[in-house]
């Protein structure tokens, strides 16, 4: 068992083209910082001063972490994390 992290296309340049990478258990924000050790530069694209950027959505098993415990949301073994940029625009 492990944590699956899905990487959006615009950030795959930082993960050597990988769509899916391995993540760590524990708080989401720690997972993001741990990713940065393996894939330098990815943390600052996703977060700023320990906060997830407003136009980046992170889902833990399909639930937006804003409706869980935000950056403090705890990831367990076997969980799936998706990082999805919210694309501004497209509105009537």
């Amino acid at each position, binding site marked *: 068992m492990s944590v699956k992290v899905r990487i959006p296309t*615009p950030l795959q340049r930082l993960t050597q083209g990988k769509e899916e990478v391995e993540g760590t258990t524990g708080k989401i924000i720690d997972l993001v910082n741990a990713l940065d050790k393996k894939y330098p530069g990815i943390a600052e*694209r996703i977060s*700023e001063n320990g906060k997830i*950027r*407003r*136009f*980046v959505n992170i889902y833990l098993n399909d639930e937006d972490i*804003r*409706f869980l415990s935000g950056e403090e949301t705890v990831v367990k073994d076997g969980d799936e994390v998706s990082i999805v*940029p*919210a*694309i*501004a*625009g*497209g*509105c*009537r």
Partner: protein
Amino acid sequence: MGFIRGLKCRECGREYPVDPIYVCEFCFGPLEVAYDYKSIAKAINRKKIEGREKNLWRYRELLPIDGEPQVGLDSGFTPLLKADNLAKILGVDELYIKDDTVVHPTLSFKDRVVSIALTKAREFGFETVACASTGNLAHSVSAHGARAGFSRFIFIPASLEASKITASLVYEPNLIAVDGNYDEVNRLCSEIANKYRWAFVNINIRPFYAEGSKTLGFEIIEQLGWKAPDNIVVPCASGSLLTKVWKSFKEFKDVGIIKTLDTKVFAAQASGCSPITTAVKEGTDIIRPVRPNTIAKSLAIGNPADGFYATQVVKETGGYAEDVPDQEIINAMKLLARTEGVFAETAGGVTLASAKKLIETGRIKRDESTVICVTGNGLKTQEALHGHTMSPHYIKPNLASFEEVLEKIKKGL
């Protein structure tokens, strides 16, 4: 002659050249047009504006174009009605309706944003314009695009009502009916926008398109005799209009057109789709997406792109937000028609009903001036009133039959 400095990310402040792009490559935040306000302040003044044609381009220094206006030369400068009959009923001293039920050529405020978007599309050298829409935007891109000579692709959900489809088809665009809901249409359009070199007005042209909403605010200030109102009530779908109306007020102050600005900005939504007003009422910055269920279809965006910024404007100005159920929307549409002779679409009912609630709860003070923004025409959404209007008096084609009915009317039967 343009005064644009470039595009700037609203979130991280990174700057970009003037291109058909809309998302910050770094942090995914929305891009916004940045202007050289110092030069604008020298180039624009009340007299200069007053001397120009009565259309939305009279404020051109504050709009994101480089050359001459090319589309929408008859759009904008709609009436600001002093609504004394309505004011009496609502119990306020000074009330105005900004009447965008009559914007040329397709009777909604979308004609403003599309005027700017298509002018910009031409400056960028596009030959095809496109949009994803279920109503007003589709009509406006179809019509403006026809006159300006663009090839047009309009994407709609296939399940749309026949009357709305006809109102686009008459302008003979390429109408693409997608087997999916509005969100799916939108997602598809983002992919198409990446692949084809087309001007999607509400995607890759969005930073420029959205600036067109400011003309509504500029006009209100000019029509009030160069002053801002105490209160303004704005309907919210994506939240962009509210954000841009406030931006227009601030810009007029920044470039010296008005000296003081103390307006409170209020957001209005339908209770069946109220992610923005709910966030304001709960005092949070987090917009929780909803699945829309309301007759106010033109406002039915469950995941509003500018929702966060709209809540910030409300907070910054000391305004508030209110939402109303469908029955109150219908009642307000009828009230506006009965008192001021304006037939608004459902979104207008939302704004008036919300304003009424804000007055009754004391959020809007009765002795202050208030502007209610009505942004689309009721003739487009007549089905919303079916079963809710009066019935005709049916008579035979003779005088006796008429006088029989007249007696009844006089007695109030």
